């Protein structure tokens, strides 16, 4: 199955090398979003792009066995819930919605700026997984539109 889906061997090898760098750079952009340029939105889109590169190179079946569309939707909702929870906990502790209830810390330190890092992680999950899921849905639809290919049985 591995041989017949996706692109050629060259693309697959380069994807294998690049995918780790992409994910690590996305995580760096998210975690250092309050110190250097970046944040949850570009980091989330970058992580979604890493998964999309994997999908384009290896075909949909291989990637969906790792993280399916349903799982991506669930992670997306969990990210939204995490972001909402930060706001609600701030409401109960400080009396204001999105009150910064954690310590401020030292500037230029990664554990500074209180709740911003948690909100960034929530936004990353939300943006990244929702865009990946919408790409999967569009890819499936496109294939159905162009040619009604015979459906593969099982794996």
């Amino acid at each position, binding site marked *: 199955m591995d041989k017949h889906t996706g692109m050629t061997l060259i693309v697959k090898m380069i994807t294998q090398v690049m995918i780790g760098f992409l994910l690590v750079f996305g995580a760096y952009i998210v975690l250092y979003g309050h110190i250097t340029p970046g944040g949850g939105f570009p980091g989330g889109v970058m992580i979604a792009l890493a998964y999309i590169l994997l999908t384009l190179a290896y075909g949909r079946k291989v990637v969906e066995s790792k993280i399916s569309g349903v799982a991506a939707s669930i992670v997306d909702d969990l990210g939204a819930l995490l972001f909402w929870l930060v*706001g609600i906990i701030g409401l109960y502790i400080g009396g204001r919605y999105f009150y910064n209830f954690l310590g401020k810390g030292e*500037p230029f330190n990664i554990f500074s*700026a209180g709740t911003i890092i948690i909100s960034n992680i929530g936004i990353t999950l939300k943006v990244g997984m929702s865009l990946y899921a919408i790409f999967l849905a569009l890819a499936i639809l496109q294939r159905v539109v162009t040619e009604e290919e015979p459906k593969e049985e099982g794996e």
Partner: protein
Amino acid sequence: MENLIILHILLVFMIIGAIITIEIRNMLSAVIAVGAVGFMLSVQFLFLGAPDIAITQVIVEILSLIILIRATINVDNVAIERKEEIIFSNRITLIFIGVILIFAWTAFHALPTFGEPSMRVSQFYLIHGLQEVGATNFVTSVILDFRAYDTFGEAVVLFTSISGAFAILRRWKKEQHKDFLRIDREH
């Protein structure tokens, strides 16, 4: 000063790219031309002192190129045009756009001149941001602390649009074996 000249040149190139986008007949070329416009926009953001947005624009541009190419790659690739009726509506639209541009020329005099923004609210963020939030990236401190409620609203908008796309793309009863949202863990 050479900064301003670069901005003008890039904007003129963006307009040329946009005109190519809407007038070329091959749809794949149109999509790639709009990608070029987006990348020039990100270079402009870099010159305007907004590295956050430059990063976001580059990455989002790649993803939107992928989505648009998925939309146009396999279907009929040529723009649809009929000559005889299009000339009339062309002229009327061009006249209206000219009128709007003249009004815009007078309206832009009411704005603060370029290079001297009125920072009544932002001055507060810049002065109090470091001791109240502790983040050294002030854009992030505005997004996620001072105006986190706005960001939450925008996350809701994103959620709504993605849910709408799912509702449109999902398969109904007849073809449910291809359904992506249906939970089938049996096989």
